[in-house]
């Protein structure tokens, strides 16, 4: 589904160019869940930003192919229309824009890009009710302004609700567990599990292993200083949890040596 080859990206800082991604290689197929773990500052969120087209990042090398298309050529909205979704680490509050109008506009823009007619109001409301129930989102939240006055848990749940509504092919969950207590974490993870199919794929970015108890990945990758330094099965996450990230430094040094 998505093939990332030797992806390099940098940001502009006051001290000049700073390279954050230093050659990422990753292949994710339909039906798979991949997790990326790593210490703070290893480039996990930058990878999410570069894949979704956030401004402020310069891609300096490599390629990303999504379903045969050069992803890096596309505008953020075009990527979404192709089926890419980002559940934000810090969902943005948008006063004055209701969740309902926002989602209806998004769904219909995506449909328009595929040459489809807009969704009827009846169908939209029905879908919204269904998905809210599936995710366990209080239906009254849908009429409120996007994320305004939502608790941390409600914001994250709203991200997963949007994921359910937009039904993307490839979803990136950027630290969806951060700021959640254990109950909220379990609820959100259950929501994600209900959305897994053989046709879609997930990239779960997390600092801690605990989310992966609930969303069980097929592959775990460890990121450090802008590279994937180790890949393995779900047991790699447990290993990290026990050993901590110091261990990575050693892995990296031994790899270099």
């Amino acid at each position, binding site marked *: 589904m998505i093939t990332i080859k030797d992806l390099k990206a940098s940001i502009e800082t006051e001290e000049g160019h700073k390279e954050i991604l230093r050659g990422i290689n990753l292949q994710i197929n339909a039906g798979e869940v991949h997790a990326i773990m790593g210490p703070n500052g290893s480039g996990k969120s930058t990878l999410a930003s570069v894949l*979704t*087209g*956030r*401004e402020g990042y310069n891609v300096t090398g490599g390629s990303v192919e999504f379903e045969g298309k050069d992803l890096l050529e596309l*505008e*953020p*909205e075009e*990527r*979404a*229309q192709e089926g890419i*979704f*980002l559940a*934000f680490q810090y*969902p*943005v509050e*948008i*006063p*004055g*824009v209701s969740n309902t*109008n*926002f*989602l209806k*506009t*998004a*769904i219909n*823009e*995506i449909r328009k*890009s595929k040459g489809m007619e807009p969704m009827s109001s009846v169908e939209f409301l029905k879908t919204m009710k269904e998905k809210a129930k599936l995710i366990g989102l209080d239906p009254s939240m849908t009429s409120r302004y*996007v994320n305004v006055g939502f608790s941390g848990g409600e914001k994250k749940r709203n991200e997963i609700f*949007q994921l359910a509504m*937009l039904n993307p092919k490839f979803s990136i969950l950027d630290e969806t567990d951060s700021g959640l207590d254990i109950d909220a974490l379990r609820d959100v993870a259950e929501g994600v599990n209900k959305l897994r199919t053989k046709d879609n794929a997930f990239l779960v970015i997390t600092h801690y292993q605990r989310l992966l108890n609930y969303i069980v990945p097929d592959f775990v990758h460890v990121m450090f200083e802008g590279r994937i330094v180790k890949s393995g099965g779900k047991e790699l996450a447990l290993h990290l949890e026990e050993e901590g990230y110091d261990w990575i430094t050693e892995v990296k040094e031994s790899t270099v040596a």
Partner: protein
Amino acid sequence: MDKISQENTDLKMKLIEDFNNFEASLNGQSNEEIHNVRRDAIAYINENGFPTKKFEEWKYTNPANILKNDYVQAFTVPEKDLSGIDVSEVLAESNANVLVFVNGRYEISLSRIVSKGEGIFVGNFAEAYKSHKQLIDEHFSGLAKNEKGAFTAMNTAFANDGAVVFAADNVQIPEIIRIINIADARTGTYLSQPRNIFITGVNAKAMISEEFFTVGENPSLTNMVTEVYCGEGSMLEHYKIQNDGANALHVGSTQIRQAADSHYSNTTISWGGKIIRNNLQAEFAGNNTECHFFGLYLLSGKQHVDNHTLADHAMPNCYSNELYKGIIADKATGVFNGRIMVRPDAQKTNAYQSNKCILLSEDAMNYSKPQLEIFADDVKCSHGATTGQLSDEEMFYLRSRGIPENDARAILLQAFAEDVIDTVKDEYLREKLDKKLIEILKRTR
């Protein structure tokens, strides 16, 4: 006092000549009481001339740019051509009073009055002067005094038509009154000077909308004055919607006096016109009044809109609240000058003011000036001004859900503007304004 420029002198001479012609055309009416008021006004202009940009009040809006065209006063031109003037969209609001003025003159054939009966007058100035002479004599220029400035005095000197709304004590006018001012700029370069008087009696209620449109491409200047008298315990909703054309100029002065326990709310929406100067001044002459000023200016090209407001707290326990929002693109300029005066007797005053702007280009400007003068010690007053750009984070969030950049921008700007549009209580009008807002935002970059 600044030295009066040569152009100013020429303009003065021309106005005096116009006034003499105007007076001659009045025949017997020149002996009326209100004509003495007009004479005082032309004398005031003769003595004081017009302000220049050196005046603090006109620092950001140069009066010379408003006065420089060689205008012909619309009243001097007897012929009129109403073909091509279409007010069907306004008349489509079935239960609305519609008063149409073309270049400041009432057009009965385009108008429709639905509110009639005991204690109600909705009509034009000339009609009111016949049926309610005493009322007009008592209120004409009671608030819009010459000291308010030369533009106000100029309007007074030539005041001969406009809209009059009167709701007697305990009378509620259920239907909205829409006053449609059309600048016909198809053939000449005209100066129109409509004069409105709105009076609500004790516990009376009304809703009035002043709306401005232009046909044709010539420059035009509308110099209007509206005097608003709110009786005790009365409620008045007042809107000003500025839809004028690209070469239309507007100077408007709205003077309000609120008696005790009255409620007045004004919403001014400016999105059409080349140069606009709105003066909106309310004086609280009794206890427990409530006053709201809402404004929205949505500007592009080289448009220039200047809102000057005054909340004059002369009595205790009054509440005033102002919210002005601007969306400014290209090389357009917004000005907000909000003056709050709290006089020594005005204890327990609550006065709030806020000006928020979004600038969409490097060259867009907004000058925001709060001006609080507080002479009482037990008051709550606050002001705030913010100017910024659209949030990159919000834009990215919307785009990451598949919404194209232009639509995402329009959604955010609409959300920003919506709380001002929402203050318009007439549903039909509000829906039209919403539609217009979206239409403008879709082409705003």
